[in-house]
């Protein structure tokens, strides 16, 4: 196990990082950013995979399967949605350059 106090340090530093990174974001990117951060917590996938990998009863297997299924949906859906939205900003930016 990651040592308790060290875990708290990680927690604190990560919280500051999240706060700082977001605080400089223009309003127009709020929706894509929410979607992007939604994608990033899709990393729950690796946890769900490990949980299913160590399953030894049917009940735990079923729950683990559901967990991996949901997590994969979170990660893939979050990515697709975010990329589609951000693509639009690229094309809009290029059009602006041409004007």
């Amino acid at each position, binding site marked *: *196990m*990651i040592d308790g106090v060290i875990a708290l340090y990680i927690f604190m530093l*990560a*919280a500051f990082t*999240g*706060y700082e*990174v*977001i605080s*400089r974001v*223009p*309003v*127009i*990117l*709020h*929706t*894509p*950013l*929410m*979607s*992007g*951060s*939604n*994608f*990033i*917590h*899709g*990393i*729950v*996938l690796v*946890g*769900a*995979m490990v*949980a299913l*990998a*160590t*399953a030894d009863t049917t009940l*735990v*297997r079923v*729950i*683990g399967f*559901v*967990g991996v299924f*949901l*997590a*994969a*949906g*979170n*990660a*893939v*859906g*979050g*990515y*697709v*949605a975010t990329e*589609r939205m*951000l693509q*639009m*900003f690229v094309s*809009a*930016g290029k059009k602006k350059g041409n004007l």
Partner: protein
Amino acid sequence: MDFAQSGQTLVQLSYLVAAFLFIVGLKRMSSPVTAVSGIRWAGVGMVLATLVTLVFMHASQLNLILVIVAIAAGGALAWISGKRVAMTDMPQMIALYNGMGGGAAGAIAAVELYSGNEQSVTHLAIAAVGGFIGSVSFSGSLIAFGKLQGLITKSVRFSGQKLVNLAILLVTVGLGFAVVSGSFTGPLAVSLFFGFALLLGIAMTLPIGGADMPVVISLYNALTGLAVGFEGFVLDNAAMIIAGTVVGAAGTLLTQLMAKAMNRSLANVLFANFGESSGAGASTVTGTQKAIEASDAGVMLAFSQKVIVVPGYGMAVAQAQHKVWELCQLLIEHGVQVRFAIHPVAGRMPGHMNVLLAEAGVPYDLISDLDEINAEFDTADVALIIGANDVVNPDARTNKASPIFGMPILSADKAKNVIVVKRGQGQGFSGIDNALFVLDQTRMLYGDAQSAVGQLIQAVKAAG
């Protein structure tokens, strides 16, 4: 160092790299120029962490097959739905994907609690807290999805609802304590715990009106992040701890920014049952709405000096953003100065309108937010409201009885003329009467935004 050990080291290193890529990705997503590369960096991190985990986890053949099938099924469904969904429906898809993440965090907690092989109380407690938050986020996000998708049209409210919700919360917390402390264990206890947590998410979200959904989705996004972070502690997974906590903090800040834009506290959004009272007593709007024909409205627009367009959810629903930009390009050719005014909470999410206008190809420099544009309404000949409602309601400035009193609004009522494109005479999504619609200088153009703007385009062409 044997193979298993070096494998674990490799896994940990890949998580470190993934966490780094996530933070760099988020950072790059904070500017329009680098945003697309941001999500790709983060995506590389995700693929790396997933592949390395898959290779080095010690799974039986059956479990390995199950993992791969579950990833393929969940990934394929999300890929197809994410690619196919219309841009306007993105907010509910984000709610859905977010709910899935919360559900996954809940499932990890359930595996820990059901299998009961965790020795330390601290571990169990962290797993339970993460599972609780994840479950609330899961069921709550699904309700938010249902509401935005139009599957759930009523906001369920009854007297004593807050007490009922409080009771559900207390029962859930009590069950959690019992499970963690070992005084009430076994599958039944764990099932009850999760059942009540899921119920709480549903009960919390059902009474919240559709207009508040952006804030709620953002809150659940932050909660899912937190839940993932907690489960990361349980699983000793640094990538989950860092990514989850970063999202938890970022999401909390984003939620506050949104609530602030509506001039309300988060507690107010969650517990005030917004829109509840507006049906009866609070409505003080008197006067009649005056209709206008598209041909007259088109002439008015074509001979204006300056037009400010205020898009809202109605434009999104009707997919009218391309038509709106076509109309504006036409007006610009006529020498009209055109600006877009975006309220921070227009649509169903902050920035929702910006995404749609970007899709239609509107240049950034024509788009202004509340602070930049509000002084300019005084000099505008026409404020063209397309499917927006609460964000231009002057009651928010003047009528203390209005549920949205105090919310910063776009001062469309200061323009010399106001044209409102609206589907019908009824109230908007929040159920609040709009004082703007009955002002002397306001004319209503009824119809679906797509067809109404289409008629305006014809009218402007005919006028010019």
